């Protein structure tokens, strides 16, 4: 089978389609480690973890913060179903910073029967958002 030239990347959340583009390369934060996808990738179904996804189109790279969900890879398309997906422009930096502060605070001063996992995820999410937002600023 001929290897396709491009990948169709679709990132959808329950609320809307976030990205729908022709791209050359995608890096997906899989639950068992990040993986890169080039056109012609073997079919793969992978869970996601909280993290940063990027995709490249020519020389232009874009970043998206994603959390929870799964990615379906086919030779000519990548479909990401995520609970949350935010492009750099969507991210509210002040809110993410506040969330980071809160989560950090909870982890620093643990109280009895605190939900560690939740606090950890909250911290991870806010950090990812900040990272993605930060990349947009460097470029812009």
């Amino acid at each position: 089978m001929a290897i396709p030239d491009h990948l169709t990347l679709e990132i959808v959340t329950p609320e809307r389609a976030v990205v729908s583009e022709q791209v050359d390369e995608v890096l997906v934060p899989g639950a068992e480690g990040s993986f890169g996808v080039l056109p012609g990738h073997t079919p793969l179904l992978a869970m996601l973890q909280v993290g940063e996804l990027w995709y490249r189109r020519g020389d232009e790279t874009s970043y998206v913060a994603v959390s929870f969900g799964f990615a379906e890879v086919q030779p000519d398309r990548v479909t990401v179903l995520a609970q949350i997906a935010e492009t750099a422009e969507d991210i509210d930096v002040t809110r993410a910073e506040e969330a980071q502060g809160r989560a950090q605070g909870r982890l620093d001063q643990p109280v009895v029967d605190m939900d560690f996992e939740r606090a950890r995820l909250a911290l991870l999410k806010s950090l990812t958002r900040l990272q993605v937002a930060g990349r947009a600023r460097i470029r812009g």
Partner: protein
Amino acid sequence: MPSLLDLRRRIRAVKSTQQITKAMKAISASRLRRAQDAMMGARPFAAQMERVLSGLATQVDTSAHPLLQQPEGEAAERPSLLIVVTADKGLCGSFNTNIIKTAGTVITEQGATPPTLGLVGKKGRDFFGRRGFDIRFELVNIFTSLKYAHAQAIAKEATAAFTDGEVSSVHVVYNEFKSVLQQEVISRQVLPIQPMEVAAVEGEQLPDYLYEPEPAAIFDSLIPRHVEVQFYRALLESAAAEHAARLTAMDAATNNASEMIDNLTLYMNKVRQAKITGEIIEIVSGAEAL
């Protein structure tokens, strides 16, 4: 016979009501458009999800999952959880009445073990809250800014109630948006998930995937999402149906008001004419008397 002044006042009152209904109609129209967009936006996610789930279902022993298990024996006797999705506001025709009526029928069908209720929307809460039902949760004022998180909250409650064995099944009753002129009350079982539902799209085989982690783990983590998506869909449908119902109701109200104004104006003119005629007769007969 009412005086001219009274009639003018009535006409003015009807006119101002008409202005309100007209404005509400315009608002509903724009909200309806937004609600429809949200519904469209949610579709690709739900469709993809269903496709992958049904593909996975062929690879995994689905009967093992707790959310797919039909309660047996004593557990099946437990009450069910009925989630009723109504609107927060009235003035939308028979939208809320229909839902409440259907929910009432479902409740009577359950007979001896009345269901626990989960109430979404103020109208349902006000109705059932006063009637001494066992209420598990209520959620009001969510429709102005409906988020996926709301569906998650409902799904969490429902799933917890089901897996803890407190309820034997979970049903949801909501208005489905058929068209602007038509809403349909839907009553559907959400939990336990019906196996045929999972295998519905079996004709379409998924390609031979690599799985990361193994299919069973993916399936397990997708099933709760599937439940969330179901609730999210019910909420979105209900929101769109509500605005459509209000649009239709307010359109009818505006038309009724115009008709009423026409009738009143006609009547007022008649009264005025009668008064003038009366005065003329008085003058003429007065002149004759002289």
